[in-house]
């Protein structure tokens, strides 16, 4: 699943159009648009609103190991070296009020320039920043990223969360119009979508927990544990033995059937079950 967060509808519109996302009218707290594996939430401005929206969506749709969250939106720039309309991939987010910094893991390749960002809890006016050509730290500022990162970190690993920010101003004089915002996003939509396509096709290759055994094997093990009068720790041992055996031999049913043949099942007692487990251990080596 890909969860896209934008603060404003104007930021989301190009992606809603491209992915033909439909509004989910069952969700009323936030505007959510979706199509299959892609969900987009309009968080509204401010880091608290954004954190609540992320938590809400992640609770409704708990993310898995191969899922990603993207925050796409406009930002201000403290330096005029960053041209209006240029897109940055954020590698460091600093929360202005706490001065804490957060670092999404940038493990996958991307075609964008990287930059750091400061999340403020107020609109930054053009008079708030001294915009020198030399200023290099905290080039960019927004109002949501730190909230999104902190909320997302309860649900995602640091490499699953990415922030794409497009420079819209150097401190706001007049609030930008929806049209201007959408225009800035549209200018970058092609690159963003191409990258999202690559990102969502990355398969971590991780075998999700619990999938070592198929459902048939799971119930077979349960049945065995019952027949052997396994305690909880014996059942863990049994599972570990069969896990290893399966990795080495591809399956274990034949082994169990062979060991079971000629023996009266279920075992009469726990000690007998233990002896059986010992035999099994020897066979697994």
């Amino acid at each position, binding site marked *: 699943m890909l969860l896209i967060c934008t603060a404003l509808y104007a930021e989301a519109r190009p992606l809603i159009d491209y992915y033909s996302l439909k509004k989910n009218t069952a969700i009323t707290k936030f505007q959510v648009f979706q199509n299959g594996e892609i969900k987009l939430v309009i968080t509204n401005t401010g880091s608290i609103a954004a954190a609540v929206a992320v938590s809400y969506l992640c609770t409704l749709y708990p993310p898995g190991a191969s899922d990603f969250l993207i925050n796409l939106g406009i930002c201000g720039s403290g330096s005029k070296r960053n041209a209006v309309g240029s897109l940055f991939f954020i*590698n*460091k987010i600093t929360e202005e009020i706490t001065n804490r*910094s957060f*670092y999404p*893991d*940038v*493990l*996958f*390749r991307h075609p964008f320039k*990287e930059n*750091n960002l400061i999340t403020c809890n107020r609109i930054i006016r053009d008079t708030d920043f001294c915009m020198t050509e030399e200023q290099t*730290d905290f080039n960019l500022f927004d109002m949501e990223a730190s909230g999104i990162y902190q909320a997302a*970190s309860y649900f*995602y*690993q*640091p*490499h699953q969360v990415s922030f794409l920010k497009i420079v819209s101003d150097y401190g706001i004089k007049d609030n930008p119009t929806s049209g201007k915002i959408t225009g800035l996003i549209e200018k970058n939509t092609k690159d963003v979508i191409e990258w999202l396509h*690559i990102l969502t096709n*990355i398969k*971590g*290759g*991780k*075998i999700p*927990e619990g999938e*070592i055994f198929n459902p048939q094997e799971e119930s077979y093990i349960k049945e065995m544990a019952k027949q052997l009068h396994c305690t909880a720790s014996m059942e863990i*041992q049994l599972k*570990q*033995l069969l*896990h*290893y055996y399966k*990795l*080495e031999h591809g399956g274990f049913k034949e082994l169990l059937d062979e060991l079971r043949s000629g023996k009266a099942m279920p075992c009469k007692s726990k000690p007998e079950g233990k002896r059986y487990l010992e035999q099994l*251990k020897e066979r*697994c*080596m």
Partner: protein
Amino acid sequence: MSSLKKDVCNPYFSHIYIEKDVLKHPVTKKILSLFPNAQSLVINHYKDIFCRKNQNFSLQKQTPGLILARKHDNLVYEGAPVCQNFGNQHFYYTSSVMNCIYDCEYCYLKGMYPSANIVIFVNLEEIFKEVKGILARHPVYLCVSYDTDLLALEQVLGYTKEWIRFTAEHRDLTIEIRTKSANKKVLDEVRPDKNVVFAWTLSPEKITVDFEKHTPAFEERLSCIQAAVKKGFQVRLCFDPLIYCRDWKEQYRNMFQRVFSCIRADEIKDVSLGVFRIPQDYLKRMRKQAPASAVLQFPYENDKGVYHYHKDLTEEMISFSYELVRKKLPMEKIFLWEKTKEEK
């Protein structure tokens, strides 16, 4: 976790995180000059990166970042009981680097650290100062390549050479450089010293290929060891950890034969033998990260919080290996993992 395609992941050290405090340190400057295309980010403390919650160790391992930091306290530790002390009374170790560029499937670092990013403590001079303090009290045997493989990082760091230089100036200090690398270049650049022990870990080729990703092949390591003994370096051979596989006897027999066909007993300082063992908490974490790893999913026995092969197998692996090594080496040159000795 299976490997991702190379073109998906960023290259090694694409991101370098630098503590504010060490921005101007010469080692920082040197490392940054080696990676001109890396993104460098200023951080307050290495733990801001290294200790983030819920990191994906296996993925990070495929594209580790570098963290340059200053080590503040506990610069030198006393050796833990699970460490082999080779009969040295004042046994210490120091970690000037955390994590390793190699990727051994069974490596305990995967269970010990929350992150696969590599932390380099640039203030080696302060570690030296602490060692000098201890040397003022008594002689020191110091493992300088713990929790990493220092020699494997030599081209970037140069710490091995620094340690050898420091040891030459302090004759009560003996250092051990544990490695799986095949870095012959260093051997040309430093002089053999009786107080500097290069300790090579060797595993049969099959184990190396199956479980020791990115490490030099068995023959490359062996050739490096041969070069070291020819030049007169102190060499320890570590057959530790011994790793079980179905045909382990054949694998290890062939390996010992090959090793001792190239290296004479009198050319090496000693040998250490020990089976794979790991604290329970580490193994629990590692098993979660690698559900498809046979070496980690092996049904080990838990003995007071440490997992290892069950008693019979441990004894069999140790005595089998011991007998083969014993044919070539006198008893006093063979060190067994302490626990195993107790069990015997």
